[in-house]
């Protein structure tokens, strides 16, 4: 039990400082910027628009496509090779599933809504930042959404349950670490993303999810505020 204080000094349940802004990319139908600590995500939404090739079209509803991308010098180690890789494809897929549950595209059969998320700087928690930015951008684009989606990574470091791990905490070596990205809906608290890296016991996982509930609620309020500020006089 050597992890007595968080590496950057914040409380166990505190997130890093969050900044959010809607409408940052003028050419997009909707866009947003979401920054948590050093992790920075820009999301741009285009559509609903025509979808080709035609075999991808769904005559019953529009579809949602997400594209997650880390910029070449966004990481803390080596340059990230540009373009899609196995990791970014997986994250794009889980984003589609996390957001697809709330967007309602039944009025737009055969069409697509494309969400592009670019991460200009990353320090762990990038898929959560990407989901938060994408949710703001989708709302800004005027897509019907049943609820607001917010995501945060919770986890365990040594014996402590913590919120929003940064890169150095994820790489903590003195004890076991679990990193659990969670996306939750604001009203129903339904979980739309749940992944894990590491190991936890059942009780710890349940505690971590309770923590995620409290933290995502705060993040959702920040997201909603960002959307309102866009149209404030």
């Amino acid at each position: 039990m050597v992890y007595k204080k968080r590496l950057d000094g914040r409380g166990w349940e505190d997130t890093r400082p969050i900044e959010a802004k809607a409408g940052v990319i003028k050419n997009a139908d909707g866009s947003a910027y979401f920054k948590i600590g050093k992790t920075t995500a820009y999301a741009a939404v285009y559509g609903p628009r025509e979808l080709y090739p035609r075999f991808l079209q769904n005559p019953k509803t529009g579809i949602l496509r997400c594209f997650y991308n880390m910029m070449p010098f966004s990481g803390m180690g080596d340059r990230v090779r540009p373009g899609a890789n196995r990791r970014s494809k997986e994250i794009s897929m889980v984003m589609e599933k996390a957001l697809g549950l709330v967007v309602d595209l039944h009025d737009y059969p055969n069409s697509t809504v494309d969400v592009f998320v670019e991460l200009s700087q990353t320090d762990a928690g990038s898929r959560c930042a990407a989901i938060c930015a994408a949710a703001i951008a989708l709302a800004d684009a005027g897509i019907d959404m049943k609820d607001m989606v917010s995501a945060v990574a919770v986890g365990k470091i040594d014996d402590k349950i913590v919120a929003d791990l940064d890169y150095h905490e994820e790489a903590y070596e003195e004890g076991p670490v679990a990193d659990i990205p969670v996306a939750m809906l604001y009203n129903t608290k339904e979980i739309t993303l749940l992944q894990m890296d590491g190991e936890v016991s059942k009780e710890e996982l349940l505690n971590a999810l309770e923590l995620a509930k409290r933290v995502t609620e705060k993040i959702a309020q920040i997201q909603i505020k960002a959307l309102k500020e866009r149209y404030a006089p």
Partner: protein
Amino acid sequence: MSLFVNTKDIVAPGEALADGMDYLPGAFTYRQGKKILAKRLGLVNVEGRAIKLIPLSGRYLPKVGDTIIVEVFDITMSGWLVRTNSAYHAMLSTKDISRFVRRDEDLTNYFDIGDCLRVKIVKVTSQNLVDVSMKEPGLTKLSGGKIIKVNPHKVPRIIGKQGSMVSLIKDKTNCLISVGQNGVVWIKGKPDEELLAINAVKKIEAEAHLEGLTEKMTQFLSNGGKNGI
């Protein structure tokens, strides 16, 4: 049993608008349990017991009866395919233009690829296949000028009550202006006057949700668009 918002408040998706069965969910809202939640980013409008939202953003969705401005992008055996600034293209049949087209005629004699047309939507199917027509006075090809695209939800504000706002811009800039319900605006005039009209339309788009817009625009146009955009 309470209302959390007032008319003209801005709400985001997922926000609770009211609790209890005293209120009814209207456009762009829905009921979850006892609460009424917002489905869109929009302005609240409470009318009696019904709560509805007026969206602030979003793409255009074709609707029968709308007059829109479109661009021809393909020609088929029986007509023209046009872009509508929405998620769906539309078909303009040779039967739906004001002149008779012989069966073997070259359709580019009428409209060629890249032409801009003012058309009316006559049919929209459940799958959003759209038919448009030009068989009405005022529906013509738009030659020359400039095209700008604006948020389709701001179009009523650009037109104004009985077209007051658009006639204001027309008077002050001597431009020909045509506003489509799909958010496409066609402007034709002298280059500097065109620029002023474009800036005026963009200013209305940016400030459409605020009050006192007519006075602001009169002032903006009187001093030649100098007080910023």
